[in-house]
């Protein structure tokens, strides 16, 4: 089958406004600070308007892949997956329990629609490079691969192996969203986008809370080059 723009997640009755409640089922509090929600808007715009994957196509070889590399604080991710019908809301109160599939770091083996297990930083982007290469080798050139990292996560050198290689070989089906909440201990002199652009990526920086700006950045054409979107949100501290 060919996935079209109509293959995005169906409306299952839950929307952006329901996400705080869904997160509250995990955390016991419907109020969440900036750290817990740093990824929320980017995740919502991706799953609501960009990614061509639904619970029904979660195993389809031609689906788009989303790899959450920054596995810490996955409540926003679980909430979005629940709103889009991948996860049963009844699972959420069990967050972190022995018999729950919802860990404080996600495990792909335990959860439908979760492409990778993450937690240790610096693994998602390199795995995404391999996934993109694997799809290309099988002629699945309509599938796009997205990975979400944090700005501090870029401290891990493994990311830089991936950024340099993906840029050098022009992996244009690969997309990275960097949630920048200024949490990298030593910062990134010259800015994060410049790190990607310097390796041949298309790179833009946007307000990570502005849904229209995120959507525009996510859908910017970038022929022949991988694409990075730096989504800036409130500083962690």
């Amino acid at each position, binding site marked *: 089958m060919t996935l079209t723009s109509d293959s995005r997640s169906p409306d299952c009755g839950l929307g952006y406004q329901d996400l705080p409640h869904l997160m509250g089922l995990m955390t016991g509090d419907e109020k969440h600070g900036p750290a817990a929600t740093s990824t929320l808007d980017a995740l919502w715009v991706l799953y609501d308007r960009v990614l061509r994957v639904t619970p029904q196509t979660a195993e389809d*070889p031609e689906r788009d892949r989303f790899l959450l590399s920054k596995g810490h604080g996955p409540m926003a991710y679980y909430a979005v997956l629940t709103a889009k019908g991948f996860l049963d809301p009844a699972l959420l109160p069990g967050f972190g329990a022995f018999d729950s599939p919802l860990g404080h770091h996600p*495990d*792909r*083996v335990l959860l439908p629609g979760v*492409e*990778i*297990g993450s937690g*240790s930083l610096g*693994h998602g982007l*390199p*795995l*995404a*490079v*391999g*996934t*993109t*290469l*694997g*799809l*290309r*080798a*099988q002629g*699945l050139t309509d599938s796009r691969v997205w990975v979400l990292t944090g700005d501090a996560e870029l401290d891990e*050198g*493994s990311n830089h*192996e*991936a950024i*340099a*290689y993906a840029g*050098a070989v022009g992996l244009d089906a690969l997309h990275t969203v960097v949630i920048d909440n200024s949490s990298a201990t030593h910062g990134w002199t010259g800015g994060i986008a410049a790190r990607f652009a310097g390796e041949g990526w298309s790179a833009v920086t946007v307000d990570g809370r502005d849904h229209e700006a995120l959507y525009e950045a996510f859908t910017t054409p970038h022929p022949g080059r991988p694409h990075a979107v730096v989504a800036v949100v409130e500083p962690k501290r």
Partner: protein
Amino acid sequence: MTTMRDRFADVTGRLLDDDPRVALVLADISADRFREAAAAHPDRVLNVGIREQLMVSVAGGLALTGLRPVVHTFASFLVERAFEQIKLDLNHQDAAAVLVSANGSYDWPEGGRTHQAPGDVALLDTLPDWTVHVPGHPDEAETLLRHAVAGDGRAYVRLSEQRNTAARPITPGRFLTLRQGSAGAAVVVAVGPMLDLVLAAVEGLDITVLYAATVRPFDGAALRAALGDRADVVLVEPYLAGTSAHQVDEALAHLPHRVLGLGVARPELRRYGTMADHLAAHGLDPRSLRARLAAFLDTSAGVPSLAG
């Protein structure tokens, strides 16, 4: 003389031709051996440059899309440098690959410690579900590599510059009885390229010799079947001494037994030289092996020394 690494390049080239599921991931090492394969299969022969972490992670990503990645560099960079990638981007993702190393122990002695990884098999032992093949001859390397690639599991194929004179009729995953001693004989398990040294060392002695070209899974049934009245087992492995001792203990948990684990010694040997120099320094040359066997078996009085 054809090396295991030469054979690996030939066979992998043919596997890439024959099976669209197979992909090869390299980090510059051996890339010159795969120029033709890369030209024929540019999307499935991937050289990521000198980036071993990425090499293993890329294999994990390829596997998640349904391909069967073969990953190759020297053991120090494949298993040690990229170990967390093996643990997380293969095991934890429930993804599989065939890792093929070269120069694991003393294979390039002039290269020194940075290019030696005698702890590779012991490190993989900390993870579940790895098949570990240690061929002793290029023909065995081909058999084991083809077997590994045809499967779906996680496999490590440890190629060496050290080799036995003749290939043995191995079955992947099974030990082969090469020499059957009397009911009172001890059992020596010779792993991969250690076989010729072991056979020379036990010449004229009443000792059973099992040959292991696959060490994980460890063929405990073959070990139990080889034992006579005496549960004395000597392991001779081309990597860290005693690496498989826990497997012997598991296989013989039901009876009192003794194990001597011979292999590469743990202290760092700050020497260059030749492979023969290193084998002697680790006590793995036939004369040293014979003396250590004799001491362990306490039959030294009756053991004639080797001629020469």
